[in-house]
């Protein structure tokens, strides 16, 4: 029997309590225990960024985080961002700029882009590219994703 542990944390603004396998990563907890599938598995090794979430206000790879380490923390996933009116502009920018093709990397991209925009008021192209270096995309060639984030940063505030 695998070791279980109860944790309590805030997920997308809602407090919740959940029992997890101690060895499980946060990605598996979100997808398989809680049932939020917007956060994607791409590699399980922190190389692709498809599983990016935000914890206590910073972006992380949920595949590189133990589920038990969510205890007491504030976790935001793409589903949480999708309900956040402030993130509407970012989502719209992705749509308007053609930053979405197969869309599999997109939730992770949006989560990381949101983090970049919180950290830098008006990020330029170079800043956005560096910010997205941990997010792989095989369809778009990144240009339209970078354009979307830069444009969103330029209009915000």
């Amino acid at each position, binding site marked *: 029997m695998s070791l279980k542990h109860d944790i309590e944390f805030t997920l997308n603004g809602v407090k919740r309590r959940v029992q997890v396998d101690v060895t499980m990563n946060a990605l598996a907890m979100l*997808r398989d225990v809680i049932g939020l*599938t*917007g*956060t*994607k*598995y*791409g*590699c*399980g*090794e922190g*190389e*692709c960024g*498809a599983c990016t979430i935000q914890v206590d206000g910073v972006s992380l790879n949920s595949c590189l985080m133990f589920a038990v380490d969510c205890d007491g923390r504030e976790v935001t*996933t*793409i*589903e949480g*961002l*999708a309900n956040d009116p402030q993130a509407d502009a970012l*989502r719209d920018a*992705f*749509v*308007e*700029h*053609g*930053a*979405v*093709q*197969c*869309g*599999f*990397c*997109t*939730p992770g991209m*949006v989560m990381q882009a949101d983090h970049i925009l919180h950290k830098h008021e008006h990020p330029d192209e*170079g800043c*956005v*590219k*560096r910010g*997205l*270096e*941990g*997010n*792989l*995309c*095989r*369809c*778009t*060639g*990144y*240009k*339209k*994703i*970078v354009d979307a984030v830069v444009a969103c940063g330029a209009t915000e505030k």
Partner: protein
Amino acid sequence: MNTVAEKKHRVIEPDSLIGKRIRKMDAPEKASGRTRYIHDINLSGQLHGKILRSARIHALIKSIDTSAARALPGVHVVITAADIPDQRPIGVAKDHFPLKVGRVRSQRDEIAAVAAESEEIAEAALKLIKVEYEDLPVIGDPEDAIKPGAVLIHPEPHGADGTHMHLKQGMSIAHKGKPDNIAMRFDYSHGDVVKGEAESDVVIEDTFKLHYVTHCCMGVSGMIAEFDASGNVLMYSNTQVPFLHKREFAEYLNIDPARIRIIQPPIGGGFGSKLDIYPFEVICLYLARAAKRPVKMLFTREEEFLASPTRQPVLLTLRSGCKKDGTLTFRQVHTLHDNGAYTSWGATTPFVMMQTFSSLYRVPHCDYHTAAVYTNNPYAGSFRGYGNLQATFAIEQHMDMLAQSIGMDPLEFRMKNAQDAGEVTGQGMSFKSCGFKDCIRTAAQRSDFSHKFGENQANQKAPGTVKRGIGMASMLHVGGGAKIYPSDGCGTILKMDDFANVTLITGASEIGQGSETVLSQLVCEELGLPISAVTVVNNDTAITPWDVGVHASRTTFIAGNSAIGAAKKAKAKILAVAAKKFEIAEDYLDLRGGFVIKADSGEAVIELSKLLRNLHFQDKAELVMTTFYYEPPSVHQDKGFKGDVSAAYAWGTQVVEVEVDTETGIVKLIKVTGAHDVGRVLNRLGIEGQIEGGVVMGQGYAFTEDLMIENGRMKNPNFRDYKLVTAPEIPEMDIAFIESMDGEGPQGAKGVGEAPAICMAAAAANAIANATGVRLFELPFTPEKVYRALHGKTPKLYWKPWKAE
């Protein structure tokens, strides 16, 4: 407030969606994380399937013991080849079984499979399966596969007394084996190369080596299979060719194809990887059949690397000649394709490669030979560009080298030999629309090619460790489908509801490329409706009409023409009804902005939705529902590979600018200037995305991606050491579109899906040569490879042309 009178006199201004930047219809869902990919779908009662793969590269299986795995709590089914007596051979050459029988031939080979309550239990069960092997010699190099006395990868079975077993004719390679390691061969020629060579002032010959890369779709492979109580099969699959696979799966399960239904959830990338049926899919079906429960199977990323197809690796020797005046005289090509242990679509890439050699430039004499040979390496599949990246890499380097050897400007040399509209090539391809010269001219002008080329060349020997280079390459690719199967067609069903909304039911699959949006655009253009009026259904074989599949850059062209056909029929019916009702001749009516209008003045006659309700809710009630099947006017190639295989051809030129750090070998890609003959731009946002994505995929092929295989074993099955291009590495991109308005294309458009990836490696090689004076014949251009070449540490590649007898 609108009165009836006002409405009647309202004038609807002309408008068009063609060429506009149209948002991808499914983008909002995807950007919100709401889209459910196969990974996100779970059926009640579902089990999880996992596959045990070979621990050896080439070996006989002496025994398999699954007893401990079967005894593990939570395990429902464990299968090996012995448990599936009705296994049928799969693959393009029917040369292997989903679960391997008696012998493994590559690292990815499937030995056993488990269906269990959870992935963890399934994995634990795999660890309990004991397999005894007897190792066989490994062929890791295709050149070894053709040596006399080479170990056979698919030996003919022997009887107990050691004599050859006499097997029935027509049995597949999986049953009867093969007396040599040659999986496929292709021999093509036009003209007389001996004569061509005799007429040449300059002849050059070089060997080029193209490496393994793989698709790396961000969504790993997976599927869910379920049998209902009557034995009908429901599959959730990532296939790009649902209708072909429906038939094939039926064959593998030995059931009527009518009993198979394939649903395609949104797919996390395709790029050609999902054109063949792979063992895991059939095994998933076996597990579901045995367990009588739905079975879901997902790869890990490591498994995705190990057990996915690759781009075809190629060893190629090219001999080319020209006259002093710059006229090409001949080309002779020999290639050795490393087939891997089994045959998938990679072996058939010569279909495309020979087109580039025979027809990209006018060449009077051309001779082409490929042998695809079995080894113990991973097997190669189809991948965006389908051999064209490899062919273009060789041919466009030789274009520069020939130009240099006769002292001609490389741009002028290309213009002199480039194809024009009206040409019928030696291979029988007929270029009805051809913007090739415009592509070359445009890309050269926008990048200031000639000026920079000369300047960089002069700077090669100047002091300084960083050298700039500029290089050019062009491509020809099918742009109006490719008639490989009995049909290259696509069906459409179009229905309109009583609010003038359209449901567009198309056979064409959406794999992220934006087909749903462009097809909607074409329908709206005919029916005068906004994009928001269309719902697309494109993912269920029980509903959608037949289509040959997403490949060969064909969807916009073929499915587009099909959608237009259905829309035109709907329009004709609507106008006929309106003509009768308002007593205006049909010719004087049109559809625009949701209204039936008078064609000359734009004056609104009636709201379209109202007219549809009138039609529907009357005594002789009728609905507007139409169907259309489009088959392009292309032909099958003859036995000599000649024929006009596509209804249109796409052209493109890319100019690449690099900076080479000669102290480290690091090549920085600075800028890519592209000019693509796309017929006509339909969705500007979508087509830019296709080109940019293709350019960066080509960048990865040229510079960063390298799937390292040593003696059949993959050394870097992860994103840490298999390097996709990341955001900070992308070049500046300047993309121009040449609109040659193809007569057969939908609104004049041609296919472009594969085109942008094709030229990059060739143009990069030419740019590095322009920067440093050193030419690289082997991909990828990693820092170490470039550094070695710059320091004279790369021995000259040479593969002696060889042809299967």
